């Protein structure tokens, strides 16, 4: 039976949706291409030295990425050092210890931490957390380890350490939720047999759950790392924005993302702008590699554990 329309819209529908799918693919390519093109003047002018020079002086057109790269790595490292162990024990609490109702509420609250916009972390960090660090945490750290190079300098509140702690809070929910899912994938039979032999909860976790899920946990950490490394607003508010490398965690510094956020609209000269775009290119490259590694790793893990996430 033929109704009134004889035009077959199906091929058009198929092509339209295919075009949208390819648009996603094209977008990643064009971001890479555009950033390389935009950074070209700086790429040509500074060459490889861009990555190893600490000089950043817009007045003399001297640009080097080293302090930004160092700041990105240092703040991310602090963030991960705090977030990974915390996430692991919180995931442990959610899966093994808390009763289901409590687990759902606490899990929901931890996930809400991920929904808070970055700029809110920034506001809170600048006006509440940084003064707290300056008045209480930093003097205390300096007093328990006097002369320790990492805790030198005036306690200003803002700086590398505060930025790292806020980053830890921001990536915590991501690592926690993936780790929780990984822990839940461990077959009950395997755990029950360990319990049956008289193991305590911690022994089951250490000898069974963690070894079983270790791949997934590593993948979760990669995912958190990818987030932390590109985080912009919260870091910009508290890191202090200074183009200098300092051994002290109390000192102000900068990261690639914070430099971009602060200086992009001020870049009056073509070379200045190109240098900033090159910084963006460096960050994009690093996150692409991290994302790729994390996805590849998690997929392998999921296949091994027989569950697809």
């Amino acid at each position, binding site marked *: 039976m033929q109704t009134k329309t004889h035009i077959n819209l199906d091929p058009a*529908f198929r092509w339209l949706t295919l075009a949208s799918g390819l*648009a996603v693919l094209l977008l990643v390519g064009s971001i890479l291409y555009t950033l390389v093109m935009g950074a070209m003047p700086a790429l040509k002018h500074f060459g490889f030295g861009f990555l190893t020079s600490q000089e950043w002086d817009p007045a003399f057109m001297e640009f080097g990425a080293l302090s930004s790269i160092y700041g990105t790595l240092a703040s991310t490292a602090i963030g991960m050092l705090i977030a990974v162990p915390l996430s692991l024990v919180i995931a442990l609490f959610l899966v093994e210890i*808390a009763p289901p109702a409590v687990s759902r509420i606490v899990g929901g609250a931890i996930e809400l931490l991920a*929904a808070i916009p970055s700029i809110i972390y920034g*506001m809170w960090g600048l006006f*509440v957390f940084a003064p707290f660090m300056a008045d209480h945490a930093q003097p205390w750290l300096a007093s328990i380890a006097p002369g320790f190079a990492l805790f030198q300098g005036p306690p200003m509140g803002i700086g590398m350490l505060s930025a790292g702690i806020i980053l830890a809070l921001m990536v915590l929910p991501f690592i926690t939720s993936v780790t929780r899912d990984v822990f839940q994938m461990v077959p009950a039979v395997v755990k029950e047999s360990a319990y049956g032999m008289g193991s305590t909860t*911690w022994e089951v976790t250490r000898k069974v759950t963690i070894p079983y899920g270790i791949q997934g946990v590593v993948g979760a950490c990669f995912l958190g790392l990818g987030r932390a490394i590109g985080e912009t607003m919260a870091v910009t508010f508290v890191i202090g924005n200074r183009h200098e490398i300092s051994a002290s965690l109390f000192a102000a510094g900068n990261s690639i993302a914070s430099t971009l956020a602060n200086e992009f609209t001020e870049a009056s000269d073509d070379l200045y702008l190109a240098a900033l775009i090159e910084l963006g290119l460096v960050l994009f490259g690093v996150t692409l590699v991290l994302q790729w590694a994390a996805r590849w790793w998690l997929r392998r893990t999921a296949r091994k554990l027989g569950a697809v996430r």
Partner: protein
Amino acid sequence: MRQRSLTYRRGIDLGIRLISFLAALFGMAMLGWILSIVILKGMPAINWQFFTELPAPPGMPGGGLANAILGTLLITLLAVLMGVPIGLAAGVWLAEFGQQSKTAEAVRFAANLLMGTPSIIIGVFVYVAIVMTTGHFSGISGAVALAIIMLPVVARTAEDMLALVPSALREAALALGVPRWKATLGIVFRSAKTGLLTGILLAVARVSGETAPLLFTSLNSPYWPESFNEPTANLTVTIFNYAMSPYEDWQTLAWGASLLIAASVLGTTVISRGLLWYRSK
């Protein structure tokens, strides 16, 4: 194997339980600390003027962020209009046509990469691609940046939700002679409605708190948004500028704006999670 006393093992176990309980408590406490500060500091700024007036110069009484509120709504709406249809279509292709093909795997891979790309990089990209080409900052470039951030989120959740629809439903529709496009839009979409809506809401929640990609695309403006072709006021960049300013009344406005953003983002997130939970029951 080394023998340990039962008391020792129980002690370790109790210690770890305590640590993990305290860690969970710590996470909740941080959430509570941040939210209560935003509410406490933001409430004094929220009044009638906040929603109806343009910003006043520092030191002058009154003044609100009406232009930024409107600007944020307009930019987000425009971003939804651009990002959601393309994202949905891409999701349809992945779930209905592409499936396990090589091209589909490549698209999925690209979408995942894009989801993990820092939003400030999207901002730099749109700056070079649009702002530099047109020669000026504009609301539309900000909306494009937000749409790019939404696109992979919508596409991936749409794919997941459509994949949950039983094939029998598609087959039944096709067997009745319904064309493929009609079956997809009229029947598959309808049964995946809640899931699709959740995906869209989550994407909207994600972009409405975004600041970094707007810093050098939409920029900001002290005036009413009149055209998308010029710098457009928005809440998040206003928070950034006002929080960094030395004026106390501007900082108060920034807290008010933070409260508004936090409430709407968290509200949207909770609603969409609730929808998802309701659906899975």
